[in-house]
């Protein structure tokens, strides 16, 4: 009796467990084909029963893959925002009637910010789910690993937020990027620091860089260090593993360096943990000028995790809100309605564009053959939320012919980069002051810690 009762309980519990895990696990999420209601609303055509086999083929969904970090140690805050934006893209496409009259099925997978996981999910997207193109992508480590799978299988990826220069500099036909290059971002960072020093009288002799041991963090720190050196500014780099929580020991060392400015290149939760723990130790953004990581632009999460984060400078990719085009404004309106946020994060915007780019490339090619899509992407002129997107350095205009560095291969050349600053506690990211470059400036920077 006792045994049977236990077994029944065990069976019930395990069934519940399995159901819940199946429901909750963020392994892969599809929209379009997998959601009949949404599909019916978005694309009426597929609901009409086709009579012939050719119609069946025509009504098969066009499958597009999407990469986002949706679990730790990845930057979940960023991943959630990207997912929402990519879902909007897929639904918008279906509302317009799909691609070539066929519904769009978006399959979103969780990379966890880990290269091995990224490789596995891209492999699965291509060989199991049969996607014809992939968008999204946040962590450079994932991008570096995933590009090899894309190349092996000949399927294009349009990366939205992976900055590592080598992702494009290897010049793979399949790899496109609308995120900025890490080295270009470092250049803007250092120009901003020089501007603070030269134009605003800020004391700037030593910078501490906190970075992560990833394919984004290490080269970004090296680029920044080299540029600071050229500008006559000393620097010390501390690197941590992605997902590090406890920074107490490092913060004591940072304090001992007496930095004039701190740059946080660590992404995700690690950046929140570092900034708040530094604030607790008396070297936070209100004590020492600090460039926080771009994940700080998710204002709700930022203020929850970094209540003492006021006066952070944050690098923002994309144009200031006042310069948004119609596509961006429509996207912000929809995104705000869904998330309650007043603005959209740059990487969410880029994720939206990455899906839309693939969709337009399929339309332009008139085919779902990946090699045709690659050809179309090389010649694309897409009006996205980020602005007009092109890839001018490609097989017909190689870096050698154009006389530019190979990193510009299949690279969107114009992602605008601004530096904004939180100037009031609890401020929304949309209300931050644009402090640099001067052409976009909406207010003067507040420089803390100056005697």
């Amino acid at each position, binding site marked *: 009796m006792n045994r049977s009762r236990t077994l029944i309980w065990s069976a019930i519990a395990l069934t519940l467990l399995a159901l819940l895990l199946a429901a909750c696990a963020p392994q892969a999420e599809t929209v379009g084909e997998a959601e009949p209601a949404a599909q019916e609303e978005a694309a009426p055509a597929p609901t009409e029963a086709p009579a012939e086999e050719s119609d069946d083929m025509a009504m098969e969904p066009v499958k597009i893959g999407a990469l986002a970090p949706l679990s730790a140690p990845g930057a979940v805050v960023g991943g*959630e925002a990207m997912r929402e934006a990519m879902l909007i893209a897929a639904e918008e496409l279906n509302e317009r009637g799909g691609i070539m009259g066929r519904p769009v099925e978006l399959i979103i997978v969780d990379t966890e910010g880990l290269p091995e996981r990224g490789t596995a999910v891209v492999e699965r997207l291509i060989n199991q789910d049969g996607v014809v193109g992939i968008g999204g992508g946040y962590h450079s480590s994932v991008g570096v690993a995933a590009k090899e799978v894309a190349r092996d299988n000949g399927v294009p990826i349009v990366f939205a937020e992976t900055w590592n220069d080598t992702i494009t500099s290897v010049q793979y036909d399949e790899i496109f990027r609308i995120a900025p290059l890490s080295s270009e971002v470092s250049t803007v960072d250092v120009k901003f620091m020089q501007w603070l020093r030269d134009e605003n009288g800020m004391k700037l002799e030593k910078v501490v860089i906190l970075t992560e041991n990833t394919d984004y963090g290490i080269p970004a720190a090296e680029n920044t260090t080299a540029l600071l050196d050229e500008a006559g500014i000393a620097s010390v780099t501390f690197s941590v593993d992605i997902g*590090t929580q406890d920074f107490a*020991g490092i913060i004591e060392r940072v*304090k001992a360096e007496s930095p004039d400015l701190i740059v946080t290149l660590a992404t995700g939760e690690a950046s929140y943990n570092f900034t708040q723990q530094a604030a*607790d*130790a008396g070297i936070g953004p209100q004590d020492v000028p600090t460039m926080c990581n771009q994940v700080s632009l998710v204002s709700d999460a930022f203020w929850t995790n970094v209540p003492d984060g006021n006066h952070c400078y944050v690098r923002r990719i994309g144009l200031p809100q006042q310069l948004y085009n119609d596509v961006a404004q429509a996207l912000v309106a929809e995104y705000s309605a869904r998330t309650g946020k007043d603005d959209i994060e740059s990487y969410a915007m880029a994720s939206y564009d990455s899906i839309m780019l693939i969709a337009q490339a399929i339309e332009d090619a008139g085919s779902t053959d990946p090699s045709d899509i690659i050809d179309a992407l090389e010649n694309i002129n897409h009006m996205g939320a980020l602005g007009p997107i092109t890839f001018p350095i490609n097989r017909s205009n190689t870096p050698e012919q154009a006389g530019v560095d190979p990193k510009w291969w299949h690279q969107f050349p114009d992602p605008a980069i601004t530096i904004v600053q939180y100037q009031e506690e609890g401020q929304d990211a949309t209300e931050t002051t644009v402090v640099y470059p001067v052409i976009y400036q909406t207010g003067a920077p507040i420089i803390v810690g100056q005697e």
Partner: protein
Amino acid sequence: MENAAIFGWALLWIICWGALGGVVTPRIYARKDLEISQASFGGAVIGAALGPFSLLPLWVATPKITNRLIGIAIAIVVGIFIAAFALADPDNLCVANGGFVISQLANGIVIGIIYGLMALGLTLIFSILGVVSFAHGEFYMIGGMVTYFISAKWLPGVSPLVAILASCIVTFAIGYLFERIFLRPMGSGEIERPTEYAILVTFGLAFFLQYFTQALTSAVPVKAQRFFPFPRAELPADSGALLKMTPGNVTIFDAVSIPNPRFTAAVLALLMLAALLWFLYRTWVGKALRAVSQDRQAAAVTGINPDSMNSLAFSMGAMLAGLSGASLVQVFSWLPQVGIPAAARSFVIIVLGGMGSLPGAFLGGLIVGLVEAAGTGCIPDATRAAAYIPAYGMVILTLVLLLKPTGLFGREL
């Protein structure tokens, strides 16, 4: 490091003489038909301390290797290590800056106390049930989540102590239910392979709790505000040279700095530890728990119900993990996956301290906390010092397992 050769030679001395002492001493003691349980460990540390100057007298006189002798030898080894490091890298912050050293020590002790509290829960479960709970990190995570949601979302403004108490109740209740439903059959003989069953079922619980929490709360990190911010104060009033307090930090002697959230977390952990010790050593139920951990059958003969003690131990273990999480949710950003590294560290600590040993778990926590702080603070290469954090505990664990496989306070087999 200016004079790396000095440090290298000192390390070589310690390793070579330590290895020789660890290998040869037990053979000499065995040949003389002497007690050899401490011979390997004792020989290693005595050899590492003074090399031939201590090993030869040891091998000739073969005295009883007491804990005191081992303690002195360890102190000498640590002294040699520190002296060699100081000579090799005189400009290192750990050598040249006393305030920095004390701050790092304080940080190590504070975080070590909390590590110890969490590991206590795991070792308590192991000592009574003989089960390693792979869901320990998830109880830690739930403790923090419950505290956050009560103090920040559901009842904002309520005392943090209420939220912490609620987290204790929730984790205790989940632990109790889980033990009654899934672990109780182990003791009744209904499960053919109870050890494997326990591993699988606690793994299942871990995944369930993690993804269930993620479904309920999302994976966006959260963080509780400081539980008890310090008042602003300076002593003396004009300079703060002796003591300076801000809501987030206290600085003593203008050199040693302790952040408020860590300080309050450590105080909470110490209070809980005192309550746990009182419960285990001063109450009938606590003594019954200890009796079951020593000899299950003998305890049953005296009228103690081992099944009830199983439930209590698992629930209390879960609650201790929950309490650790509750006290740290004001220190770290909190996610459904936050318990994974914490649980891994707890496994290291209980093996280091000796499986099932309560003092061992606490001491192990302190050692890991201090070693992590020392490693992070003293390794000269700034780009690697923090990256090695997960490795520091592993290095100590490997050394202890090589020399004393039962851990520092483990029962001899």
